[in-house]
């Protein structure tokens, strides 16, 4: 790492420190959520793209979405239930746990890790279908985040992969976000140096993009 980069890194760190100070005037977010009465709960289920790999939780999209909702007067809480590295099989295994959070809406973003490991898209599709089925059984509204696979995996694979999301949305009558990383993927300025995970700015775009779909899913004041 070069000197100047370290310098930039320190500046970034300092910047975050100030953000942190600002926030610390009010109690920790966890406590706020427990104490203030909320109208409803959105659970963001997903992988590292939901968890906000490498970032503070406040910078990941669920926290930004909650902030946006609250600013607009919606007293909803958005729980970040993202797990880095999780495949759709993992997501399926923990549906029961997700239900314990008593969600009204679930934003389901999964499958990217299946794709990166070359898992047969039909496996991913079956898993997501099962997750959706269980959630719907419990009267949870599902917003499905569409995902695309990196083109280097091969066209045959990527087209099969991308197709599963609209197919599922149609089959189960879900609200579909066409592509979760729309406008963010591939932009070096909006992603971390690994070229995969968004930075805070990238998540701002994602939160803005998701916002109308969440309203469509029935967020009420």
């Amino acid at each position, binding site marked *: 790492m*070069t000197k*100047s*980069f370290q310098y*930039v*890194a320190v500046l970034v*760190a300092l910047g*975050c*420190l100030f953000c*942190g100070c600002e926030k610390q005037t009010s109690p*920790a977010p*966890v406590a706020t959520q427990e104490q203030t009465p909320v109208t409803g709960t959105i*659970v*963001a289920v997903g992988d590292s793209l939901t*968890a906000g*790999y*490498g*970032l*503070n*939780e406040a910078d990941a999209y669920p926290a930004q979405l909650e902030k946006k909702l609250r600013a607009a007067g919606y007293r909803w809480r958005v*729980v*970040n*239930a*993202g*797990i880095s*590295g*999780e*495949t*759709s*099989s*993992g997501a*399926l*295994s*923990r549906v*029961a746990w*997700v239900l314990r*959070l008593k969600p009204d809406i679930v934003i389901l973003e999964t499958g990217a890790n*299946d794709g*990166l*490991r*070359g*898992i*047969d898209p039909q*496996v991913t599709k079956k*898993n997501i279908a099962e997750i959706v089925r269980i959630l719907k059984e419990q009267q949870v509204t599902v917003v499905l985040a569409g995902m*695309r696979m*990196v*083109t*280097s*995996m*091969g*066209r*045959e*694979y990527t087209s099969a992969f991308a197709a599963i999301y609209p197919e599922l949305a149609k089959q189960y009558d879900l609200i579909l976000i066409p592509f979760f990383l729309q406008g963010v*993927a*591939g932009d*070096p300025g909006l992603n971390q*140096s*690994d*070229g*995969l995970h968004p930075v805070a700015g990238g998540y701002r775009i994602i939160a803005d993009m998701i916002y109308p779909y969440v309203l469509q899913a029935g967020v009420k004041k």
Partner: protein
Amino acid sequence: MFNARLLFRQIRGAVRQSTVFVLCVALSVVTLVSLGSFSRSVHSSLLRDARVLHAADIILSSHSPFSPALTQAVAGAEQRHELTTARVYEFYSVVRAMDNKASLLSDLKVVAPGYPFYGSVKLASGRAFSTVLAAGSVIVEQQLLDRLHLRLGDRLRIGSTVLTIRDIVEAEPDRPVNLFALGPRIFVAAADLAALKLVGTGSRVNYSILVKVNDQQGIDRVAKELGRSAVKGRERVETYRTASSGVKRFFDNLLFFLNLIGIFTLLLAGIGIQSSLAALLQEQERTIAIMKALGAGSRFIFRHYIAVALMLGLVGTLCGLVASFLLQMLLPELFSGLLPDSVELTISGSAVAEGLILGFMVVFLFTILPIYRLRELKPRAIFGKDEQRLVRNRPVWFTAGAVLLFLLVMVVWRIREVKTGLYFVFGVCTLILVSLLCAEGIMWLLRQQQPRNLILRQALKGLFRPGNATRSTIVTLTASLAVIFSITLVEKNLDTTFVQSYPPSSPNLYFIDIQPGQKADFARLLNIDTIYYPIVRGSVIAVNGVQVDREKERQKRSDNLGREFNLTYRDQLLQDERIVAGGALFRKEWSGLQVSVLDTVLKMRDLHIGDTITFRIQGLPLSARITSIRTSSRQALQPYFYFVFPDQDLKDAPQTYFAAVRVDRQRIASLQNRIVTRFPNVTVINLTETVAIFARIMEKLSTIIRFFTLFSVIAGVLIVVSSVIATRTARIREAVFYTILGARSRFVLATFAAENLFLGLASAASALVLAQTGSWIICRFALEVPCQPFAAVSLAMVLTTTLLIIAVGLAASLSVLRAKPAVFLREQAEE
């Protein structure tokens, strides 16, 4: 000048001491010469290896296409003929067999002609890589053929094109040990890159440009220039020298340790030289006194004994050089497989010169004092009046200072660090001081003893008989045994950390992402008895209520609290774990959630028993108190967990299972195919090659370390021999008196044995205490590896050295006992 006949006669008269002296000198020369040539070979081959590991002088890499600025900078330098480049694209892609439609995730590497600039890609056919990898062909790993049921000549659909499998890759230079490849390697020629249609917008590719600099002196300059054009934080510019590698750190440790052994061996050999010469001179005290009485001047005596020392030193050095040459024939055998075959382990002229000069310096430094002190010997010593000579005078301090300075220069020269040199010298001073204190303490303790047993009582008295060098013997033994014990302990610790962590039986197949519902079926299919570790993913959000700043944490280069952790639950320790704080894994009497923490976490944050860590497990905060801190002997490649919860606490949390097993190479492909068919979500990671390579290298290394440790052990044995021999004259006299007084030889033997038992046990025990402290310090601070006490080994070392001391002492006295006392008395009278 001096009398040659006298010289030879004297050497012949003290053949034991002379032999020890010669051996000590020879040993120091052998150590220096072989270590010197070994480190030179390792150093040069390491640099060469580093270049091979990167296949280039400079490597540019990025996760996105290179910026125009950097591309132009490279093109400009290429036009000026400063460098040659080869582009490399690495990415995963799903490839398909043409006929049976089976597909497989593979690790593609598209390379331009010229790759690799250093090292070579080894193919099964033995052909040259560049001639095989033409447009339209691919070279694959055997694994791919097994998994897809293909053969050479079959066709493979990759991206939008179809390529033919031409050969099998066995090794590639810049992928020495790729820990977590998700699929087998496929080499594709850059000419086919466009036809693949896999690299472009929306693809995930590791882009690199390998650079070979035409003027080898200019590597750093060129790298710096290119670095200026690179986008900071996104495009990396590294030379083969700057690129960090765990291998380098390991070799640094190894060379550091070997150099330390070498210098210590030198010190030990020096002590051996000094004590054998002192013994020699002591035996000749009367001769010297007579010479003085007959008018020989101090200067003559000084010159004469310097000649004796030089004579013996020369013989020793020559022996050492011959031994080094002989060793050189053995070394390639010892190092084969570790160093590239191209490295020639020959003794260079400089190594010989170095050995000669250092050998001479060691002889000079360690002989000057005993010889110089002959000046103080008065002719009246003829009458056998032993007198205590003054120890604390200027020459002693002067010599001690010179020896320390010599050591400092040696360390700085060999390890190239003044700080380490100062630490070393400080350590040696402390060692000698503490040894002195130990000797005083031991002698005080022994003096207090009044054993009933006559043999023991006589033995104790014997230790304090006039002229018996008990104090200096204890100091010498304690100090040198402490060094040897420390070296052995450090070697054991290095062995445990690096070598034994890669046993050939290490697991080679890892299964991740087994879902709870699949566990039973999976276990049935795998049919190998193994542990299924439950894994719950979670992150640490606060410690004692204070939030963890993830971004700040992640900026630390070392492991940190900012990442997500694999949590697990179980109620007992793993085989290789033990509790270091907190007593038990969990506490029944505590209410609320509990967690046990691995000691590694303490490096990221200072934590104590009773502290509260708040985790976030999929959106839910969960606070747990620390009940215990564990440590793990951490066999590499064996799973370990930072945070362990009690069984009931996490059982219901979302989890997956992980398993690691050992499977024979032949069975892997079919097993992998069965698992992927039945459990498509389970990812199998095959580490067979990695484990095999590591196990092989580590075993070699342990042989090398043991080999060089042997030198110091031999030095130690020589010291024991010489210091026991040093007390021989006094013993002979004593044995004679005992015999005259009617004692049987068994009594005399028992007394001598008991005397050596006291001497040996006391020195060895105090040496062990010093060694344990020393090895702990070296392991913790110099090598940064975990340190264990090795109780059994320690006990064995103490017992072995004590037995050795007794045995050497008895062997030296045996001839005395066989002789008739009258003979000795007559000889004494004649003198």
